[in-house]
C-alpha cells in the first residue's frame, strides 16, 4: 500500500509541472518519470528507515515521497536545461 501512496504522490505533484517552463529532459513525460521514480525511491528509503513494513501506512507516509518527487523533478529539469544550453555542433 505504501508504494501505491508514493506513486500517487509523485503522479499528483507531476500535474503541477505544467506551470513551469518546459525544460525537462524528455519533456512532460521525462518529468513524470522523475517525479514518480523519485517519489517511490525516497518513500521506500524513508519507510525502511522508519522500520515500518511495506503495508503499514498513515498520513505521514505521504510526506516520505515529497523530497524524492522534488529531487526527481529538479534532476530532470537540470538535465534538460543543461542539454538545451549546451552548444550544438
Amino acid at each position, binding site marked *: 500500500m505504501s508504494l501505491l*501512496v508514493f506513486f*500517487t504522490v509523485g503522479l*499528483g505533484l507531476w*500535474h*503541477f509541472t*505544467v506551470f513551469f517552463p518546459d525544460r525537462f529532459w524528455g519533456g512532460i*513525460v521525462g518529468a513524470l518519470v522523475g517525479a514518480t521514480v523519485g517519489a517511490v525511491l525516497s518513500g521506500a528509503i524513508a519507510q525502511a528507515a522508519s522500520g515500518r513494513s511495506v503495508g503499514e501506512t*498513515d498520513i505521514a*507516509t505521504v510526506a516520505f*515521497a515529497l523530497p524524492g518527487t522534488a529531487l526527481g523533478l529538479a534532476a530532470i529539469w537540470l538535465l534538460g536545461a543543461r542539454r538545451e544550453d549546451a552548444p550544438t555542433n
Partner: protein
Amino acid sequence: MGSRRRTYIVLAVVAILIALSALAIVNKPTRLGLDLQGGTELVYQGRATPANPTIEPDDVDRALNIIRDRVDTLGVAEPEISRIGEDQISVGLPEVQNAQQAVEQVGQTSQLAFYDFEPNVIPPDPKLNSPESRPFNRLYDAVKAAQEQEPECFEKNGEPLCTHEGQFYLFDEATLEPLAGPAKVKEDLFFGFEDDKQPPGSIIEEIPQGSVILREEEPPDDLNTEVDESSLTPQGWFLLRDRPELTGDDIRNPEQATDQFTNQPNVTFEFTDEGRKAFQEVTRRIAERGLERSAGALLSAEEAANASDSFAVVLDGEIVSRPIINFVENPSGIDGRTGAQISGNFTIQQAQDLAEFLRIGALPIELSLISQSTVSATLGQQALDDAILAGVGGLVLVILFLLFYYRFLGAVAALGLAVYALFFLAMIKVIPITLTLPGIAGLILTIGVAADSNVVIFERIKEEVRSGRSMLSAISQGYRKGIATIIDANVITLITAFVLFVLATAGVKGFAFTLGIGTIVSLFTAVLFTQAVLAVLGRSHFLNSPRFLGARERRMRTDFDFSGMSRYFFAASGIILLTGAFAFAGKGLNLGIDFESGTRIQTTLSKEVTPDELRVALSDAGIDGMEGAEVQEVQEEDAAQSGFQIQAKILPEQAPDVKPILDEAFGVEDFSNNTIGPTFGEQLAKSAVIALIFSLLVISGYVAIRFEAKYAIPILIALVHDILLAGGAYALMGFEVNSATVAAFLTILGYSIYDTVIVFDRIRENVPRMPRAAFSQIVNRSMSEVLVRSLITGLATVFLLTMILLFGDETLRGFALAMMLGIASGTYSSIFIAAPVLTEWKEREHAYRDRRRQIEETMGYVPVFPEQNVVARLGDGESDDPIAHEPVPQEPGSDVERTEEPTGDSGAYPSQSRTPSQPGRRKQTRRQRKKGG
C-alpha cells in the same frame, strides 16, 4: 460486388438470423449461474501427499472424476465441475442448499488406513503401557512426545506408507490449549486470526514425518439410553508410528449394513487379493501376540477378548473403530475372504456415505476447501429479476435518448440495438453461456458499446451533412470514416475482455466473456446492419431533411481552448490525486472478503431477533472466529422476520455449520453465504494485478502499432490517472473493494482507452489535413469535433449505470458505482490529460516547434484553432485557411459541390468553396505569409 447488392445481402442475412434467433430464444433454455438460480459452489485446492509428492495434471483429472461420481450420488442435476488453473477444482451444485452435506460428500479425502495398534502406539509413559494409560489427555503433550520421535517413513513394495510429511499445530502459550491444526503449512494455522497472522501469545509446534496423532474414537452410543455417551467421556489423543498395514485401495464392494449384535449401522466390505493377504497376515500377527502374552493359558473367548490386541481403523486422521482380534476365536488371524466390517458411531446416512466413498475410491490428492458459497433460490431469483429490470430499463433509456438526440437516425440505431439484443440473447442460449451477475453487467455494458458505435458514425454523418454533402454521400462517408475509429476502439475492448478472460478468476471471466461476445455482435449490428438500413432508406424524405436528423444546426458551441485551459484541469487532477494519496495512506482500501478472506452470510430469520441476541448465539456456537463477527441488520419486507448480514473470519469448511445453529435458535427462512479462504483471496488479488498490468502492456503495444509510440504514453498516463482516481475515491469514501470492483476497474481501463482512442483517432486524422497548424491547434480542432460524441456516449453509459444503481443487486451496484466514477474520469482524462500530454510532447518535435514559431512570428500569438490563423491575419472577413487546411478531395461519385457551413462564430467554420480554381486567394495568402516573415 455492387454496394446495393451488398446491402440487400446484409439485410437478407440479418432477416434469416433474426428468424433463427427467435427460434433459439423460444426453444432453448437459458443456463443460469449459481448466483441467479441458487445453489452451492465449492472451490478446492489440491495439496500433495507423501504418495503424491507433486500434483500432476493426471492427479487433478482423477480427482475430478471421483468428485463427479460423488456428486452423482447427491442427485444434483447439471453440476458444473471444472478445473481452475493447475491444482484447483470448482464444484458448482445448482439448487443445493445443504452446504454442510455437500462439503462432507464432495471433498472428503476418505483416506482409510488400518493400523496394527499396539506395536505402533506410543504411550505418554513407556513404562505404563496399559490400555488405560495409552491416550494423551492433552494434544500438546502428544505433540511434544511426537517431536521426540525420529523422522521416518516406512515403505511397502517401494511405496511410502506414511500419511503426511510433517504437520503443524498452534497452541495458546499460556494454557497450551490447541488453537488450530493440524496443517501442512504454517500459514494455514493463522486463518481466522487478525490479519491472518500468528496471534500474539501463541506457539507453533511441528511433528515430524513418521508419527501421527489420532483422536481417540468415540465410545459406542448405547441406543437404549438418550444420553450421548461421547459427551460424558472426554476423548484423548493417541500417538502412533505412521505405519498403516492396509489402505482404502485394499478393499472392494463396501456396503452399508447393520451390525447383527448392536443393531448399529456399519460398513461391510471385501478385500482385494492383495488386501486379503495383508489382512490375514496382520490379524494373524495380532492373534499370535495375544497368544504369546497368555503364555499358553486356557482362556475362554470372553477372557481372551480382554487380553487380545486390536486393529485401528482410521478415516481421515480419526480413529473410527478399534476391533480386537480374539486369539482364541481366530488363532490364525482372520481370513479376509469373507470380508470385514467397519463399526463406529455411524448414523445410517454416515454409514451410507462412507460406503459410497470407499466404493468410488479415495481422492488421489488431498483437497483443501478454499472457497464456499451458497446462494438461496430466493436471493438468486431476486438478483435475476433485478438484473433483467436494470438491463431492459437501461436499453429503453438509451433508445429514448438516441431517438431524442438523433431523431430518425436514432430510430435506426434503436432498430440496431433491438436486433443486437435479439442476437445476443440467442447466442447466450445457443453457445450456451452461463449467465451470472457479472456476466449480466458485461451484457448491459455492451449495450453502451453498441450504442457508441452508432454515435460515432452518426456524428460523422451529421458533420458531412452540415458540410453540404447529399444524404447518401454523407452516410457513405460517415461509415467510411467512422469504421476505422470503431474498429480501433472495439479491438481495445476485445483485448481487455480477452486478457480478463484468460487471467482473471471465475466471476470476472463471465463478465469478460459476455463483454467480448457482445462487442463482436455489436460490430455486426451497429455497423453493417444499420448501414444497410440507411442505404435502403437513404433516398426517403425523412433522411433528406436535416431537421429529422437533428443535424440542422450545431447545438453545442465547442470553440473551447482545450490545450490552453488544460493546465488548470491538470492542477485540479493533481489536487484530486493528492487527496487520493492521503486517503490511501490514512484510510487505506477497504478490501472485502474476496481479498482479505472470511465469510459473509445473508440470512432471514423467522423470528424478531436483535443483533445482540444473534451475536450471543454465534459466539456460543463454538465456531472459531465467530466471536468477533460483525452483525448488521437488514430491512425485511415482513416485519415479523429479521434480516442480517454477518461477516466473520471463519474457515470455508466451518461456514456451513452456521446455518443449523441459526435454524435451531431462531429458525432460518433464507440463507446465503460466501466464504473465501486465505489462499483463494491472495490468488484473486494476484490475478487482478496481473490482468491489469498485462492489459496495459498489450493495449500499449496495439496503440503504438496503430498510431505511433508517442500516442501510447499519454494513454497509459490517462489510464493510471483514472484507476488511481477511482481507487482514491473508494479509499476516501470507505467503499468495499471486491472482485466486482476489480472487474469494474478493468472495464474503466477499457472504457478510458476506448474514449482516448476515439480522440486520438481524430487527431491522427486531422494531422495530415492541417499541415501548417500547430499541434495544439490540431488538438483543439479535433477535440471540438469529438466532444459531442464523448458526451453523448458518456451520457448513454451513465443511463445504463443509473439503471443498475437503481435496480441492480448489491454486486451490480458496487460495479456500477465504480464504473460511474471511471466513466466520468475516463471522459475527462481523454480530453484534459491524455490529449494535453500528447500536445506538450509533440510540440517539442522540431516540425511542430517550427510551425508554432512561424505562426507566432506572423501573428504575434498562436490562435486557438487552425482556421483562425488566416482569419486573424486577413482581418477582412474573407476566410480561407491555406495554412490550416488542405483542400478536401471531391468525393468520387458525388454530384454535390462541397461547402462547409458558415457559423459566424469568429470564423471557426469559415465558408470554403471546394472548387479547384482560387488562385487569387492562394496568392494573397502567400503574400501575407511572406510579409509576416
